[in-house]
């Protein structure tokens, strides 16, 4: 096993990886930008190195600087987390060239699955179902229209180098195609410096179901079951869970087998995710490979009992998987809510600034993965994901009730977060029934959410008035109807009587 590993990331995922390293007894090195000097990951690491100014392009994306640093300090491996350089084939190659282990698949695999059309081709050759269409880049309007008519409208325009929804457009008829293609090409060109686009048949309101796989360098590939990720907004996942309420046992076996085939076909080593679309007839289609640890990996950890970060490190160190497919045992149900620094009352605009106070939930079946702390200034430069709240329980229903309880305990003050939004999702009949698809949040949930009323206005008004009353003639608001705590931790209000309590019985 490695003696020292550099973590090329920040935020909650850096903290997550540092925990895994500590439990394995591996020394850790953090890197940080000038915006992150006070961040939690810096304090959790054994060593910490400043790598540049706040903008990611000047720090967390600086391939040469990070690889050179790892060499200089004797780190044998680099864990990229997710985002930033995690799926950058050039970074993986630079590590390989410098003799540093990249904790993830080979640069060749990353390049292969990063090209959406190449990935499709590979999967078709391996006999895995893919969405009809998309076997070549289309440059002229005539080509586009011909292809659209061949596969049948509606269609989806996609960027060959795509990801994150960039360059994607739904087109419902041939007339709309040229204009949409022009816009998609522009977007793809500026996002990826590659304006190749292609057409796929549109799967209307699919469910998004992905399979976690782990593959070692000795040819063993095992899948760890699925994650349901259909609760999305603008192609961003908001809630993930496992198992998916949509899969039957036999469909799970079929899709798991396809996932393993996909991993083998792309020469995949390490932990990865095979994403599928599932249509209303429960037919599934390969969507893409995520060649990294996913944000939502703890969902799988909770149901399988495995530690994926530690598995990644063991695989990267050349160890063989310690389990076979039949050893993987799934227990109960897990849900993840992504807590983002966004204001659900204000169009989900980012809400950065100082976290004045924070209390995290705890207790049975609750897991928090967070990169923040009270006193932390959430920077504007990075992803709004600041924490992930997960619950586990024997059944999906119990996991939802536990999530409601945990969300009620979670308080982050000073910035707005998506906690109230998740509360409403957990209370919604549509989510609880398990009958939803990727259109759910935008089409069903949001109209409902926007129209809801706040339940406790009267109690809040009373609290405000009581504090105002307490402030009259006092320097500091403290308490109404009570003295402050006496030494030793208890109050003995002289001669005080209460309503509703025991003292009534003494009269």
């Amino acid at each position, binding site marked *: 096993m490695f003696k020292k590993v550099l973590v090329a990331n920040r935020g909650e995922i850096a903290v997550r990886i540092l925990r895994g390293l500590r439990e394995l007894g591996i020394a850790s090195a953090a890197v940080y930008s000038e915006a992150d000097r006070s961040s939690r990951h810096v304090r959790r690491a054994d060593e910490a190195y400043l790598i540049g100014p706040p903008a990611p392009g000047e720090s967390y994306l600086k391939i040469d600087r990070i690889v050179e640093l790892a060499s200089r300090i004797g780190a044998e491996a680099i864990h990229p987390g997710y985002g930033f350089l995690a799926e950058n084939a050039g970074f993986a190659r630079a590590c390989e060239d410098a003799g540093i282990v990249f904790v993830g698949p080979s640069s060749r695999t990353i390049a292969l699955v990063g090209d959406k059309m190449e990935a499709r081709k590979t999967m078709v050759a391996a006999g895995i179902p893919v969405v009809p269409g998309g076997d070549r880049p289309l440059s002229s309007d005539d080509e586009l229209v011909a292809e659209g008519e061949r596969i049948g409208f509606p269609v989806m325009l996609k960027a060959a180098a795509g990801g994150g929804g960039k360059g994607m457009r739904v087109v419902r008829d041939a007339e709309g195609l040229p204009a949409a293609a022009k816009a998609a090409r522009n977007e793809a060109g500026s996002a990826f410096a590659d304006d190749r686009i292609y057409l796929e048949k549109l799967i209307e309101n699919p469910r998004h179901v992905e399979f976690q796989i782990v593959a070692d360098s000795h040819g063993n590939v095992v899948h760890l079951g699925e994650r349901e990720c259909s609760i999305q907004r603008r192609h961003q996942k908001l809630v993930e869970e496992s198992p998916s309420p949509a899969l039957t046992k036999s469909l799970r076996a079929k899709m798991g087998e396809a996932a393993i085939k996909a991993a083998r076909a792309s020469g995949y080593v390490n932990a990865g995710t095979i994403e599928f679309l599932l249509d209303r007839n429960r037919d599934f289609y390969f969507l893409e490979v995520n060649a990294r640890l996913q944000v939502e990996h703890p969902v799988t950890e909770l149901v399988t009992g495995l530690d994926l970060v530690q598995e990644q490190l063991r695989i990267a160190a050349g160890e063989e998987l310690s389990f076979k497919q039949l050893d993987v045992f799934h227990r109960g149900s897990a849900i993840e809510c992504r807590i983002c*620094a966004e*204001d659900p*009352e*204000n*169009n989900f*605009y*980012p*809400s*950065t*600034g100082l976290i*004045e*106070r924070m209390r995290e939930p705890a207790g049975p079946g609750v897991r928090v993965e967070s990169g923040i702390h009270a006193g932390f200034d959430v920077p*504007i*430069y*990075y*992803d*709004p994901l600041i924490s992930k709240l997960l619950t586990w329980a024997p059944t999906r229903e119990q996991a939802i009730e536990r999530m409601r309880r945990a*969300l*009620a305990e*979670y*308080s982050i*003050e000073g910035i*707005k977060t998506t*906690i*109230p939004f998740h*509360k409403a999702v957990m209370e919604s009949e549509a989510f609880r029934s398990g009958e939803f698809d990727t259109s759910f949040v935008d089409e069903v949930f949001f109209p409902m959410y926007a129209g809801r*009323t*706040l*339940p*406790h*206005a*009267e*109690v*809040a*008004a*009373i*609290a*405000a*008035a*009581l*504090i*105002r*009353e*307490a402030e*009259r003639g006092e320097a500091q*608001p*403290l*308490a*109404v*109807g*009570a003295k*402050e705590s006496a030494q030793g931790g208890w109050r003995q209000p002289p*001669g*005080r*009587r*209460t*309503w*509703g309590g025991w003292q009534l019985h003494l009269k």
Partner: protein
Amino acid sequence: MKYQVEIADETIELEVEKTDEGAKVTVGDETQPADLVRIGRSPIYSLILGDRSFEVSVHRRDKIYQIVLDGATYDARVMDERALRLAAAGGADEEVRGEVVKAPMPGIVVGIAVEVGGTVEPGQGVVTLEAMKMENELKSAAGGVVKEIKVEVGQGVTQGEDLVVIE
């Protein structure tokens, strides 16, 4: 003391009475005992209202008490008897002149779609702000003529900062 609290689009009239036995609160024709205790030096309070137990956290911003209760945030504007009399004696609020587009969040200005002297339609995008990897187009609620542009592309702005003044 009588209070009028503007909160969540409604106005609630209530009365707080301090007695030797503690505080009582009357809303409408219901009177309940109320016990509010601050937890240490934190902004958290435990409120026992009748027999019901609540945890609220309170931040004061100017005249507004921001109450977080059960995960929802309530902005409460509390007016006591004296303030109410003053308000009744005074006139209406000062009239707002001009339209100022403000930053709804901190961010970096990545685009300005208007020029000084140009006209703006209601709902037209005027500034694009980037924060946390997302671009957000800010629109002017009212139409008018651009009087002043207070920022430039590439500049960082704080929440609430004035961006464009429209008349």
